């Protein structure tokens, strides 16, 4: 079965190539699609099983990272995106992609009406940081992308990644409903509440995270590959999970 994945590009998204590579290593048929093409013909998204929103600096991160891109999607594509998710298909957003999904209200979408409930604000350090750290996956999470995963080293590369919820009640529901898919383990690099690094929506099919599995797709991406034995590029496991889910549910 061919797992069709659309890697969204345009308006300052800039990590489309590595995202495409990650999905193709996970044996999906990945294809870059300019977001304008989807905005012009929204129904086109249903030709794909998976939508992937890569990292970038969409609209220069002005007015807040991911904010303007989300406004654009809301205007032209939100209804189709909701249908897409409801039909059992998958969405992943990494870093800027996560920020877009959060600002669009697709994550965590507790209300079911896509209103923003969480945000990724300026790191509490106030600066951009690129470094590797350990994350742990929540085994109880319903997120299909992180199924069976335990711990992993991944890089972070962001300036606005501090996860907050609009209210304590929302945070409580996110925790109680097991929507937290991944947390920072060794250290919290940005001040995120409860060390949250990534969450899923209530369906478990939409996933957003700040760390970058798409740049741990070769053992040599790992900063210690020359001194320790890195047997596997673990980032791929996340993409493989997504692909396998589609295989199991759509063939």
């Amino acid at each position, binding site marked *: 079965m061919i797992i069709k994945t659309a890697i969204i590009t345009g308006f300052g998204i800039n990590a489309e190539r590595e995202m495409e590579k990650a999905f193709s290593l996970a044996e999906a048929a990945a294809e870059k699609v*300019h977001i304008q093409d989807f905005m012009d013909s929204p129904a086109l998204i249903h030709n794909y099983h998976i939508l992937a929103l890569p990292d970038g600096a969409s609209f*220069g*991160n*002005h*007015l807040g990272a991911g904010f*303007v891109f989300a406004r654009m999607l809301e205007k032209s594509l939100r209804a189709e995106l909701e249908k897409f998710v409801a039909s059992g298909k998958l969405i992943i957003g990494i870093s800027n992609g996560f920020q877009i999904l959060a600002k669009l209200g697709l994550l965590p979408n507790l209300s079911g009406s896509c209103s923003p409930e969480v945000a990724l604000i*300026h790191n*509490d350090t*106030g600066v951009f940081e690129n470094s590797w750290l350990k994350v742990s996956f929540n085994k109880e999470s319903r997120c299909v992308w992180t199924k069976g995963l335990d711990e992993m080293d991944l890089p972070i590369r962001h300036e606005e990644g501090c996860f907050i919820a609009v209210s304590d009640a929302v945070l409580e529901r996110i925790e109680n409903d097991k929507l937290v898919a991944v947390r920072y383990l060794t250290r919290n690099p940005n001040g995120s509440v409860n060390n949250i690094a990534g969450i899923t929506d209530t369906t478990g099919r939409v996933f957003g995270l700040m760390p970058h599995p798409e740049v741990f797709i070769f053992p040599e991406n790992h900063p210690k590959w020359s001194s320790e034995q890195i047997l596997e590029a673990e980032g791929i496991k996340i993409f493989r999970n997504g692909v396998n889910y589609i295989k199991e549910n759509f063939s």
Partner: protein
Amino acid sequence: MRTEIYYKNPQLDGRAKRLLEQLKQSVSPLINNVKIVDVYITHGIDQLTPELAKKLFSDTVAQKPSIHTPAAFKKELADAEWRYLFEVAYKPGVTNPAVITLKSVIEAEIGKKICDADVILQTAMQYLIESPALEKNIVEKLKRVFFNPVVQVLEFRDGGLDALENHPLPTVYPYKVVQSNAVIEKIPIHQMAEKELKEISEKKFLALSLDEMNAIKNYFADENTARARLEAGIGQDATDAELEMIAQTWSEHCKHKIFQATIEYKDNETGETENIKSVFSTYIKKATKELSEKRPFLKSVFHDNSGVIDFDDENLVCFKVETHNSPSALDPYGGAITGVLGVNRDIMGTGKGARPFFNTNVLCVGEVETHESKIPEGLFHPRTILKGAHQGVKDGGNQSGIPTVAGALLFDESFIGKPLVFCGTGGILPYKIAGEGSWIKHIDAGDFAVMAGGRVGKDGIHGATLSSQAMEEGTPAAVVMGDPMTQKIMLDFLLEARDAGLYKGITDNGAGGISSSLGEMAEYCGGVRIDLHKCPLKYDGLAPWEILVSESQERMSLAVSPDKIEEFLELAKKRGVEATVVGEFTNSGFVDIRFGNERAGLLSLEFLHRGNPEMRLKAEWQRPETADIPLPELDCNVILKTLLNESNIASKEVFVRQYDHEAGAGSVVKPFTGKNSDAPSDGAVIRPVLTSKRGITVTHGICPRYGDRDTYNMAACAVDEAFRAHIAQGGNPEYAAILDNFCWPDPIESESTPDGKYKLAQLVRACKGLYDAAIGYSLPLISGKDSMKNDAKIDGKKVSVRPTLLISLIGIIDNFEKAVTTDFKDEGDFIYIIGNTNGELGGTSLEKLARMNLGKAPMPDINNAFKLYTALSKAISRGLVKSCHDISDGGIAIALAESCLGGDLGADISIDMLPGTDKNTETARILFCETPSRFIATIKPDNIKEFEDIMHGYSVCKIGSTTKDPVLKITRDRNYVVDMPVSKIAEAWKREDF
């Protein structure tokens, strides 16, 4: 309408927290808190109601909007009673990328395009400072932190809410740029006397010499010119547009006149005098030419926007390094980000268009410890320049998705007048595009000249000519501001158009704007007609000549054939990129400039590109006196600790971690390595093609202080440094190419430069050193750039940079899995030193510390080092070398300390038998001299025989082994001369106080 956005819980604003820390440290500990408000100013859009503005501009989860009441009055911000308010907005005409986004989001929301002329869109940043009353000079210092008068305007309130109530903030900031008349001025240059010629050059900031003005006069006075102009109906007088175009094309920045000049070089050491016809041809080009058979991977050298070499059978890689010194001195942030995006465009404009895939960056600034009082009026403190330029480099790379993989930060008192900002970018392009070699530009008469990207404004007018002058007070601000988002959108479109074969030739618009880009492209077919009136403008009020030379950013010039133009323009529209036909390529032999029905210029291409008079200059070499004095007995432990903490040697992790260095997933060797990822790498290894085992190495060499003794040594050492770092990482010794970037003080003797002959001799000697090293290592030069006026004149005092040559290397590593890093790997490995230790201390870090002349500068053994490198490279490719670190600043002691830190391991070292030294060599000289061509490597005990066999016949010496006990111990005659735990090494080396 002013919409102000603030955090619901200001304590969550990481930006403000960071700013507060900085202000407490660098301005005053009395400052208690800082809060930040984002301000959006919108006028003239009826559909944009306050309700809609609130929704559009604020993140409802974290922020709150305020429209009618200033946010500064809101309880979240006012509770703790702020005392000072600073609000900063951009001056009219300065590109503000946030406004471009603002416009997009409003347009998307209201469903129609906004006409720029009818609306005002501005953004501002507001800072609320909670503190007691501060002294006047502290307040002034605060102002300097928040605002740069060159590009910004400031609103300041002292006295909290009352002050704001009495003096509300403006509802709009000045937005009108100074208008010029759209007329063409005629200048009867053919009749002018010398005095008038001089006046014209000065008045119009042409930066042309009298010789050059005379050449222009002669061209216009010439019969043939006069006849051609008469026939064309343009008249014999020169137009302002023509003079501007000539001035841009002939500027030192574009024409490299000093590198082309005939130099009479007198060497007082040998007593000989030689006439050098162009140091560029004689040394740089010649080296590459002589190596071209031996190094068949060269594809396109010197003439294009970057140098191009083969990567594999299917791809080429290219590399270019530019400087952006003058703009960064005026506006460190804007100058640096524009530098990064500008060199990205050089890559996009190489051949038929390449895709940038890595950036490098070298920033040179004055010493950060410099006392404020020592900073000349009108110049920024090195710390301010560093902070701004670093942010510019960070945003330029990070926001474009181009990893910043290598580079350096250099501190030297000579950079206090002008910082050096080197921005490099590497690109990749498929071997063939539309059936033709991708490195070839192909332009035919009849092709349309198309401008794509941003619009034309008054940005950066005279950038090329200004950078060819010393900076003086009153220099008009030619500042441009790059916008990564606009450029990324353009890049996406261009690659799509390239792969669909929609254009034939492309070049970037940098210095000189379309006057340079179209003028250069015209050389491929023999002429061009430029229709200035068709260029899309940011706003009204540009004179034709301003359109011609404007340096507005994010623009490319292209040649599109008539049968593709429709498709090209359609795709541009679909991708949201403005593309406009602004002329046509011809074979007329002329640059024909039109403005509507008016003739704005008609210049012969031949004259424009080859009509400038050759410069004749004099150089005289007198070797500075120096003597190798014996060193007294020194406590090497103390020196090591001091050097580890020295600004040039200390860790730059606080800056480098802010660069995204692994975008693209091709990262193999990162800027920091080792157990805790905190030890320095020698350079970068990255993979441009994720399906190939082949990788590339990127390294730099720069050592300006060696030039104090002899720039010949400096140049040779810079080449060696870049090359040995390539070797240390596992690079193929026969597969690398280098770039040269010269940043010199004015080397032309004059009243203001009485030592011009010496400085020019330094240039000649650097070129000689560069040539000899390039030939010795068989390293072809593929591209370069020079910046020759790095002086500042303030209060009549001249501050010149040390002559500086940056060498940047791009090389191949055949299998990236064999790459080697600098960190010690396991205890019990044997430590080797490779290469002779010759004891030179001139220009070294130790000399800088000692503040006295310590003799000869280091010099590589360029006749023999290549063989040594080839042997080492063989050992590395066989997997015998577990760690390898090149020895550079601070000598072997520093290299050992860094490798220990990386491995979190200790080392037991004896320096009794170090090759090149004897029992009389002082210990400090052995430990800290900076002889090039040396490495520290570790070998597993099982492999030492094979290693030693391969290295047989070369200077290689086992000096100790790694230890589990994390202490660096160095003995001489069984006495400990260094005994330092890794924790102390880390403590000294990891600096955050820049």
